[in-house]
């Protein structure tokens, strides 16, 4: 039994401690907003926040999340920065198929939390681990810059 705090709620989860957080979220808790892309931390689709830092949930064992604050895409809009990022995504028509965008939004929110006004180089650096096959990168960059301005 693992004790988790998911989006502010304390939960007891009955799962193999080695099971990746991704599958605890998706299969055990039924929270499907966090996406499976590769299972090897290569694409960023599964990004969540552990104590505010972006992590790839597909390679993070559930045991590593015990005692930490886990935030997923389902609750990132309750965060001031997360909400601004989501609004900027809508404004800039960022998403195409949208499958990678949960991870993109989580990575972008973590970036803006650590850097109020990231440069393009810093945006590229922070987002390079998130693959988008539809090619929405230009709009992601524009939306992050816009969200930074909105947050002031």
């Amino acid at each position, binding site marked *: 039994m693992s004790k988790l705090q998911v989006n502010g709620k304390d939960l007891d989860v009955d799962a193999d401690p080695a099971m990746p957080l991704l599958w605890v979220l998706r299969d055990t808790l039924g929270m499907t907003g966090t996406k499976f892309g590769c299972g090897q931390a290569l694409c960023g689709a599964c990004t969540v926040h552990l104590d505010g830092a972006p992590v790839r949930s597909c390679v993070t064992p559930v045991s590593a999340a015990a005692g930490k604050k886990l935030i997923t895409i389902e609750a990132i809009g309750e965060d001031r920065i997360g909400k601004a990022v989501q609004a900027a995504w809508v404004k800039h028509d960022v998403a195409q198929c949208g*499958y990678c965008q949960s991870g993109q939004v989580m990575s972008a929110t973590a970036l803006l939390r650590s850097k109020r006004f990231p440069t393009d180089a810093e945006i590229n650096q922070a987002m390079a681990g998130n693959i988008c096959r539809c*090619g929405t990168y230009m709009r992601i960059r524009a939306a992050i810059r816009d969200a930074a301005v909105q947050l002031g």
Partner: protein
Amino acid sequence: MKRRTWLIGTGTVVGGALGVGVLGLVARDGYYERRAKELAKPALFAGWIVIAPDNVVTVYIPHSDIGQGSHTALAMMAAEELDAAWSQVRAEQAPADPAFANRHFIEGFLLKGRQAPEFARSGTTLAFGEIGRLVNMQVTGGSASVRFTGQMGLRTAGAAARDMLLTAAATQWGVPRSELVTREGTVQHAASGRTIRYGELVQRAAALDAPAHVTLKKRSEFRLIGTAPPRLDIPDKVTGRTKYGIDVSLPGMLTATVMASPVHGERLVQVDEGPALAVPGVRKVVKLPNAVAVVADGYWAARTGLAALKPQFSSGSNAQVTSETISARFDTALQSAEGKKVHSAGDAAGAKGSQVAAAYSVPFLHHATMEPINVTALWEAGKLKVWGSEQDALGARNNLADVSGLALADVAFTPMAVGGGFGRRSAPKKDHLAQVVEIAKAVAPAPVKLIWSREEDFAQGAYRPAVTTRIEATVDDKGQVQAWRQRFIDTPELINEGFPLPYAIANQRIEAVAAPTHVRYGAWRSVAHSQHGFFTESFVDELAAAAKKDPLEFRRMHLPPGSRHRRVLDEVAQRAGWGTPLPTGHARGIALVESFGSVVAEVIEASVDASGLPQVHKVTAVVDCGFVVHPDTAAQQVQGGIIMGLSAALGEAITIKDGAVVQRSFPDYPILRMNQVPAIDVSFVESDGPLGGLGEVGLPPVAPALANAIAASTGRRIRSLPLRSAGKESPNA
């Protein structure tokens, strides 16, 4: 024409030139009438539009949303003709149902006097069947959604519904129809100052006959088309609420994962199930003809169980095949007996002038959709219920009936949001569907979700075919191309896409030569244009060099003045500053490709760094797609196509070793990342040409424009992709 036949009414109004199959289908069994009645309750039904008494207009979209934003664009087209307020419009994915069969896909080709695109014709690996069956497709492909479904279906349906609402209001008020106008979802009568909402008219309108003819708006009358309301789907995509196929959850659902023979076409011989069954959570091992599946309580246990297995597959001569043996086979085939004629004009052998020849090759490519292949099924009392993310919902349902042996009526398919398609999720590929049917039978009555690992997704793709070509041309002393002779390796979906050439060349002989491999092929974004765009536009540049002409000027010489092609070229040259100075080492390349009814020209500014790697600095694209429905989503599609084209041209290749695909995940297959994306400038020119596609058309000019820029910068001609596997020698010229 009665309301009950309205579905066909929306089709027959258009030009009176419809495929007979549509009429036959409707007349045969009354199916459309029944479906129309079901969907019409309780409101007026007009084609794919439902107007409810509460004034909500629901537009049923037959295509999958694979990211194109076409749900928004198609709803706009219906709303435009209906004169609905955008705020009252909703877009809904239509069910996988023959009532929504994508007949407009085929009609679009028929009306232009052309045949179906090759990838949609009957063939061995990419068969949809003949045209008669094609009307039963709900495919999302061929960049067809807006230009066919939207133009012929939804605009007409919107106009017809508006017509009926006007008649209803005239009757209700006892005033002449000519005194009425429609605006923002209301009918208005200026003389009496009365206004009534559409929802209040639907009951009366539903009793009317559908109009036999409708007049669509002129472009100058558009109020909504050409504006850019926010895409309807994005809010749910940034909050994790959108449900993709992989997100399906059913009570008591199990999860399966699978490993098929890495060498395509081989069979499962033997597997010891024990190691998987020993993993906690694993329920069952299911042997399939060419694969082994592990079923468990969740994906993690299923994957762990599968990893413990050592399945043995049959092995034949294909186990010796490599990329090199395939290339050699292609080269031999190109030199063999005469190929199949693709296009011929004049006397290609008799022209006088100097000869230029070159050979080009492109590799297999993978779609690498971000959502791995998955599908969920429930086998219950001899019936099948399936949920999935497919580009062709009805085609998937037909395939499920096919692989299960059930009647279509006993197969239900629920289309879910699609996490990337690019051709991978089109109907011809039904392997995962066949797998899930067998697995669902084995675990019935439990529902089961089959998820392929990323490694399986790479290993069992439906790859963009590798193709080799050899081209020769005769150029006269004025630099005019007198003859073009080309042979290329045939794949079922290749022929005719890309030919005839857009250039005025009197003598042409284009041939295709068959050289099948055991590697599975599929349609990949822009289909054959991804290969032929590179071949044609690279060689045109080589001809320009041989003629000592500027590449832009050389192309203009071979295009008629006033043509769409020439206009697009001139526009892109102007926007990109063609001929203006650049930093040392930088150079521009240009390419022009017509595909899916749109004409696209691109200029790429590139250089080569100290280590010999190409660097892309800027892409300028100009698109003529007739007119633009939603400028922002249109630009979005072209930007995405350019980025996918750059990704492929720079680094993507699927290679074969020991008969199997070598690449198994992203590091082996470098998809472009944000830090590698150059500045991209996309603009549109309007023309009176027919509405063209957008989902694919940005991609084909990318590779040749880049290769042409590298040649201009370094003098080194790239004749083989991808560029970054370079260091290797170009094929012989």
